[in-house]
């Protein structure tokens, strides 16, 4: 693989970081402050996107930041997997920033400066995590992401919010220190390096029992992926303002978790090692259990955001399951689903936030007839829901297609059954919302007729954009497929 030394990845990080300072400085002038956020998001997206051509040619962009100690290097390396995640995150940051402005101003939230600053730090760390060249760098950004999102989750500072935030922190920081860090230390001790390599770095370096222990530690230590039973922080974190839930809990934080698992599975252990030890199957079982259980719990949630949260838990495990199959199509599907699910889920959360701002409704049972008052919002919601269920022409279909293919390649009938069951369950908890919104009569007496009562335009526009993104991704899925297959080719040795 051709290595191309460039400072671009560093610039992509610095853009968000300098935004933090500028936002802080202009705290007294809200318009200027929001301009910085938007400018930074735009610039970041441009820098990240400018690396696309190089990556598509199969090259890798590298840049060394600092050597903390021998063996502990802060190094950035952009490959196809990282760039896909970073592009998704920076694009959605831009959209979410617009949405945030609408949401935060409509609700006249407090501490908005802190909110935008933490948001920028969170994006800084998500990008850093995507570009991490070794486990140490990855861990650094993993922790920074946790710490920077804590103030966002605790934003309302009510006892409830603080309780949720504390659980959030306990789960994420606790597992990463107690399980992930020891696993990284053991990796360093046995493999002598922490650098990601497409064939894995642990093969033949440690006894099987130790490798199994390390694998379990890594999976348990990545609570951001919300694999059961380490998922309960996610619903608890739904106390955050909706844009936070949208970007961080559908895209940045949770995707950082599955991204970490993917990196570790493919680039630290390597598929041959895991297949040889049968650990892929273990992970697949955990993921399958999570998919089904979370879907069943989601069925019973009346709070819209809680239902979306459980749906996220289930969808994240799709990615884990896909990667755990250790087959080319499976891995491709998992990587594609990182982006596809991000667009779908952010649309759903945006819609939930818009409903809250425009109609002050949070429960599913209150949504009867709301589709007539908020046609754009609920239309976008429908597109997002269809993507979750995997109905064409929503993009969710594409990744599920490859997931099924991967299951066939791996000769795992059970996985196919799990996927079909879960698809039915997905339909079971999304379609009633859509039906009720459009076809049921609202219980409320329409006071001013059935006039349109949409949320502010700064909120509706983003959700329409992401919903069209979901559709667009279906028709342009070959680009996504190409990027994913660069990764797949490198980790499977070109097969």
């Amino acid at each position, binding site marked *: 693989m051709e290595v191309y030394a460039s400072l671009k990845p560093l610039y992509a990080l610095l853009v968000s970081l300098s935004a933090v300072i500028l936002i802080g400085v202009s705290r007294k002038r809200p318009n200027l402050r929001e301009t910085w956020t938007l400018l930074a998001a735009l610039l970041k997206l441009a820098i990240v996107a400018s690396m696309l051509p190089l990556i598509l040619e199969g090259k890798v962009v590298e840049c060394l930041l600092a050597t903390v100690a021998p063996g502990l290097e802060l190094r950035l390396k952009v490959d196809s997997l990282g760039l896909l995640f970073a592009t998704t995150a920076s694009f959605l940051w831009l959209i979410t920033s617009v949405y945030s402005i609408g949401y935060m101003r409509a609700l006249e939230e407090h501490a908005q400066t802190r909110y935008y600053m933490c948001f920028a730090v969170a994006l800084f760390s998500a990008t850093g995590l995507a570009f991490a060249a070794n486990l140490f760098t990855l861990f650094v950004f993993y922790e920074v992401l946790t710490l920077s999102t804590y103030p966002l989750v605790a934003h309302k*500072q009510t006892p409830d919010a603080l309780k949720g*935030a504390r659980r959030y922190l306990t789960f994420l920081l606790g597992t990463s*220190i107690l399980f992930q860090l020891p696993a990284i*230390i053991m990796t360093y001790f046995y493999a002598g390096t922490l650098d990601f390599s497409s064939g894995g770095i642990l093969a033949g370096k440690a006894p099987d029992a130790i490798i199994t222990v390390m694998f379990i530690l890594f999976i348990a230590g990545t609570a951001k992926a919300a694999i059961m039973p380490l998922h309960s922080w996610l619903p608890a974190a739904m106390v955050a303002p909706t844009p936070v839930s949208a970007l961080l809990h559908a895209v940045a934080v949770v995707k950082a978790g599955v991204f970490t698992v993917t990196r570790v599975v493919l680039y630290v252990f390597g598929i041959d090692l895991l297949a040889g030890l049968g650990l892929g199957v273990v992970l697949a079982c955990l993921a399958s259990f999570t998919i089904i259980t979370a879907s069943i719990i989601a069925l019973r949630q009346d709070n819209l955001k809680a239902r979306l949260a459980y749906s996220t838990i289930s969808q994240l495990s799709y990615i884990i399951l896909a990667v755990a199959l250790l087959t080319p199509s499976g891995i491709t599907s998992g990587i594609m689903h990182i982006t596809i699910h991000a667009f779908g889920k952010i649309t759903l959360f945006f819609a939930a936030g818009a409903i809250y701002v425009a109609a002050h409704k949070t429960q599913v049972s209150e949504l009867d007839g709301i589709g007539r008052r908020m046609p754009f919002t609920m239309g976008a919601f429908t597109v997002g829901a269809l993507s979750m269920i995997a109905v064409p022409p929503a993009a969710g279909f594409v990744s599920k297609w490859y997931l099924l293919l991967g299951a066939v390649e791996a000769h795992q009938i059970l996985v196919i059954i799990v996927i079909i069951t879960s698809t039915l369950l997905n339909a079971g908890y999304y379609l009633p919302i859509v039906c009720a919104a459009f076809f049921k009569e609202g219980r409320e007496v329409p006071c001013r007729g059935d006039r349109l009562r949409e949320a502010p335009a700064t909120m509706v526009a983003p959700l329409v954009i992401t919903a069209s993104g979901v559709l667009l991704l279906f028709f342009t899925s070959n680009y996504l497929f190409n990027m994913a297959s660069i990764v797949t080719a490198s980790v499977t040795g070109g097969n």
Partner: protein
Amino acid sequence: MIKDLPVIVILIPLLGALLTLIAGRINRIFSWYLAAVSTFFSFIGVFVLVQAVWHTGRISYWLGGWEPPRGIEYVVDYLNGFVLVVISFVTFAVTIYAKKSVEQEIPPQKQPVFYTTYLLFVTGLLGVVITGDIFNLYVFLEILSLTSYGLIAMGKKREALIGSYNYLIMGSVGATFILLGIGHLYMMTGTLNMADLREILPAVSQSRVVLTAFAFFVIGLSIKIALFPLHNWLPNAYTYAPSAVSAIMAATSTKAGAYILIRVIFTVFGPAFMLSGMQMNHLFVFFAAVAILAGSIMAVAQTDIKKMLAYSSIGQIGYIVLGVGLMNLTGIMGSLLHVLNHALMKGCLFLVVGAVVYRLGITKIADFKGLGKKMPVSMAAFTVAAVSMIGVPLTVGFVSKWYLAVASLEAGMGFLIFVLMLSSLLIAVYFWRVIDNIYFQPCADVEAGHRPNSVPDPSKPKEAPVLMLVPTVVLAALCIVFGIFSALPLSIAEKAATVLLK
């Protein structure tokens, strides 16, 4: 000049102490200036000295021109050069900070005496580290201990006296043990010079007398560094001492103790002695692990921030002893690095607490609510140091923990990783309570009784004065600088550890 520096850096604070007493009679304000100037010059001296050591290796000074082993020798090598830089730098930083804090906490007529005792304390600290003679070490250790009893007793509350008295009893027992150890060694070898002892001891290493001497040293030093379960004197001493004294003691005096432990074990007795026979290093590992967990658990239970930090120190001492017990290069590097790191982190934390006491007179964690808005810079420094204590990467705390964890694996004691991580988690628990109060809890009104009279308008508490803020921020910044660029301290620590393990 360079050859005389080992004695000069000790003479500066010693003469400073005498001058302070005299100058303080003329005008009180002179005493602080003298203290600041002497600690500054001893830092510069140490810095030059360590640079020379870096280029030429070990530097030895013969006191009065008497050739060792007959005369007293002052030696600076990588190990104590490293510790000296840490100690003299933190001392200087705390002295700058002390001005405002002492003005408020110590009655004016006692201030010259305070600074005199303070400088004698610094003399003891530097002397303990720089001397190459084991009896001279005892002398400096006594200077260090006696002055600390005095400094602690100057605390405002009555409990300071009890704390000081407690420390006096325990400290004297420890010192007596050390003296007995020295006596036994002298009996066996007829020499007091450390390098000389090292050459003679292996021949008689398995004799009962030497073993007894070792036991006396270990117990005595364990009391001095407050290794669990011999820690009882420490919490009250740190809690009720004046703010500047808590900071300097937490940052430096246990470090000096840890240095003596390392020196005695590796230079005087030698690593082979530890590993032969009873394998006493396992004992160290066990007590270190217990100390790490026990200190952290007890810290979680505290409601007073100074007490919390004191118990946290007990856990942190465990880290340093752990690396010593592991007896491998990585472990000792981790220990030495933690000497630096803990001095920076704990120094910074105590300085912030001192600033809060100065402005608001509170030490209860529950009263910290809303301080993030009132004293943003101090609280930011506190947060950085706290995060570093937890061991978040890119702060110093991470690097030393990393080295200790890798060392545990190298020593075949992988389970220790979980002890380290569990303690990180406990540290996160007790610091997060504070951070939560600082930033996310609504501002609580401080009850009137707690407030010192010097704050005229309690509704608008201000940020700490610049003179207190600068040292605090510098220490916090160093927590990050050395967290990212650990290569420099690590390279010195590596050289020191290599020499020790020979």
